[in-house]
């Protein structure tokens, strides 16, 4: 059974600081997605990582994938308040008709 673990589950940080959210998964997969959810809102796709060593960047967020270690990271550089949200990673289970298996989410609060 494919399991996806995110840590930390909650993170409070000051503006201007750097931090990393980790997403570990338990079995072979070749695709990983990062989503953002603002309070009371739906989920918005941030990054799609399709191969080992893939790195995607958008603004102050950078995501990477190491399929050998079964690990993805979401790095936040010089955090700003607008990045406060809950971030989810999700992994494709290769034998489950493309269904995504979700991490529990990381609630990120960035204080001004």
């Amino acid at each position, binding site marked *: 059974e494919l399991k996806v673990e995110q840590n930390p589950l909650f993170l409070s940080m000051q503006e201007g600081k750097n931090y990393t959210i980790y997403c570990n998964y338990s079995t072979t997969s070749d695709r990983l997605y990062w989503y953002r959810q603002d309070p009371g809102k739906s989920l918005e*796709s941030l990054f799609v990582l399709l191969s080992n060593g893939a790195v995607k960047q958008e603004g102050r967020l950078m995501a990477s994938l190491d399929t050998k270690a079964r690990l993805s990271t979401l790095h936040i550089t010089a955090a700003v308040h607008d990045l406060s949200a809950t971030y989810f990673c999700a992994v494709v289970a290769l034998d489950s*008709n*493309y269904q995504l298996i979700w991490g529990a989410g990381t609630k990120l609060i960035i204080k001004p």
Partner: protein
Amino acid sequence: IAGITQAPTSQILAAGRRMTLRCTQDMRHNAMYWYRQDLGLGLRLIHYSNTAGTTGKGEVPDGYSVSRANTDDFPLTLASAVPSQTSVYFCASSDSNRRQILYGYTFGSGTRLTVV
């Protein structure tokens, strides 16, 4: 604008009542999903449909039923609501081809359901 429409946006429902949450997509995605989201528990899959005419059970299917009569619609029915079904419900869709690989799931805006 292409996407997923969920209705209602929110609802307060008396326990024991029947309710159908509606989900319609206009992207011709073949796969659709229903999730519930509860504080601290992330997203849990209730039911899914890989193509019109087929459905499957997810992680937490009890008390819910779905149907998929056509590609666009995927309603979720609570036959007899209970307070533990108070949650936010999200419908999502994807295409089981290369587009899904690139874009993942598309989510609706959610239905906030309170069962009292």
